[in-house]
């Protein structure tokens, strides 16, 4: 096993985790029938808030919570505007992204040049001492920061919630046909607002992961389009949490792989390599989701439509 292999795997995990959070959060939002294009804006506000709290208090837990809370606060603006004031979801989502980028730049003033020590890692020294496979297991499964484990739990929990729990069924019903859901007495807008808040919190968490773990610093616009990739992942993963997870790791993995390939002098033009994560992720997700009937079944029928209770 080459020496760079284990650090390589670690880089993949850190590069992929923000997409898992933001993508799964957005998946829940879309399943409730709301399209929030403001993921990038919520992520960046989560990133700057988490970083600010992390640097001032030194507490990782507090920083992470603040990131999630800030993302949810941004989502609240979106929720009130689109659900109760019936503004256009696409336009409001875009505005939320622009607002978030500007707001975060303002909030980040004075945060320059500070760094954060990082989040605690879980260590299992005994398991890592197993010869040969020990280090590999250690890298793959153990020794990550807590948020990585949480992202796996999140994927499983959201999958269970949407498919097995009663509340999840209600959420999906609202996303499929809000009029029918309303007529049998479900609080459509409340359900959607909660979904939007959850999505915001997860996007904020994804942002927090960037500014606390991936590159523990603050610079303007540091999300650099990751929110948009998370949005795309949801669609290409045909609204399945496990596929969002696979897509996120595929994208993160290929991004890191192409950087390593360049360093190793593999003779593929870097433009092609740079394109590879996007192409391959789309391709793989399109292939595993190629059953168009299933996609129609998975796509929330009321996605992006405003609900206004009449009578």
């Amino acid at each position: 096993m080459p020496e760079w292999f284990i650090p390589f795997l670690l880089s993949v995990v850190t590069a992929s985790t923000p997409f898992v959070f933001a993508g799964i959060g957005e998946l829940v939002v879309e399943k409730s029938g709301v399209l929030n294009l403001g993921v990038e804006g919520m992520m960046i506000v989560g990133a700057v808030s988490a970083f600010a709290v992390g640097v001032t208090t030194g507490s990782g837990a507090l920083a992470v919570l603040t990131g999630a809370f800030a993302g949810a606060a941004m989502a609240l603006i979106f929720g009130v505007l689109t659900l109760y004031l019936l503004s256009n979801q696409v336009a409001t989502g875009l505005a939320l992204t622009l607002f978030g980028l500007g707001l975060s730049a303002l909030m980040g003033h004075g945060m320059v040049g500070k760094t954060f020590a990082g989040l605690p890692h879980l260590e299992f020294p005994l398991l890592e001492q197993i010869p040969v496979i020990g280090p590999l297991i250690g890298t793959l499964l153990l020794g990550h920061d807590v948020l990585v484990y949480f992202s796996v739990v999140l994927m499983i929990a959201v999958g269970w919630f949407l498919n097995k729990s009663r509340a999840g069924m209600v959420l999906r019903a609202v996303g499929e046909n809000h009029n029918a859901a309303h007529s049998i007495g479900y609080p459509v807008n409340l359900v959607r607002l909660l979904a939007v808040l959850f999505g915001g919190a997860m996007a904020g968490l994804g942002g927090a992961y960037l500014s606390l773990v991936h590159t523990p610093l603050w610079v303007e616009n540091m999300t650099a389009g990751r929110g948009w990739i998370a949005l795309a992942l949801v669609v290409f993963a045909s609204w399945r949490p496990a596929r969002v997870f696979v897509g996120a790791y595929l994208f993160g993995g290929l991004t890191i792989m192409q950087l390593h390939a360049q360093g190793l002098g593999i003779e593929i033009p870097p433009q092609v390599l740079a394109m590879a994560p996007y192409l391959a992720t789309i391709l793989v997700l399109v292939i595993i989701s190629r059953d168009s009937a299933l996609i129609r079944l998975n796509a929330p029928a009321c996605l992006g439509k405003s609900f206004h209770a009449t009578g």
Partner: protein
Amino acid sequence: MKLGKKLGLLSGLAAGVMLAATGIAQAADPLKVGFVYVGPVGDHGWTYEHNQGRLAVEKALGDKVKTSFVESVPEGADATRVITRLASTGHGLIFTTSFGYMNPTVRVAKRFPKVKFEHATGFKRADNVATYSARFYEGRHVIGLIAGKMTKTNVLGYVASFPIPEVIRGINAVAIAARSVNPKVTVKVVWVSSWFDPGKEADAAKALVDQGADVMLQHTDSPAPVQAAERRGIWAVGQASDMKAFGPKAHLTAIIDDWAPYYVERTKAVLDGTWKSGDVWGGFKSGMVKLSSYNSAIPADVVAMAEKARKGIIDGSVHPFAGPIKDQSGKVILKAGEVMDDKTMLGMNFYVEGVEGKIPQ
């Protein structure tokens, strides 16, 4: 749209100021100077320094000028739109501060012959389009010397943006200088296909460290590679502005771009009516390129060597591209005793000996 908003806000402000001014005596209309930036002002690198230049113009010329800027403008069609907007809203002088704005700038300039344009790092000029750039390769020569002395693994990592002559020249300058003091050095290059993406820049830097690099150099605009170097316990050199805060132990020095004197001079020229199109390529000598303070961990003899080279470049006794220079295949590009002319340097599209990999075509 963020850009539009910012512009709207600025022009709103401007309108407010003008309203206030009409009450007073009739002052001459201030010259509106526009700046187009490729990254955010808070990138702490390339764009940050251009914005420092803009602030210097305001400070030096006071109410004779009115500056505005649009940040994070993608290179390409968006740039054309933004530049057109600036030109059509009464700006008399527009600085477009990234290589990729070259064609948009020239195109818009044709439609607005009265507006003066200044394009950074490009090579297309017109009667109302001047170009300017800094000889960053002079700075890269000095950091190459330092890196060559500081490396233990003899591998220098280089996080690069796009394969344009400007970037290739920097890589080559580093390789030549480093190998002049340590012939075992090789330079590993990773292209991130972006000027500004902190996450990807950091990932690229980590990949290079994993492959043995112990000095990190960069031609991208965020401080993320410096920070990644700090966390992995290797050396790094900052890009465009002082990045010491992001890696106090790792930061050997930084190449600083100082655009302020040039921006003030050119704005004055427009005010005086003496502005002419032209091409300026300033280096250490004119102060356009500077180095930030040296890390105290650099041995005194290495600092002395670096300073000697810097002074040599200023007095002309040292040239970063002096023969003999061989390309990767060992072919002699420049014979001993010759120095490379500007035209060859500006079009540089080959790697010198000691750089690994191929230039992406």
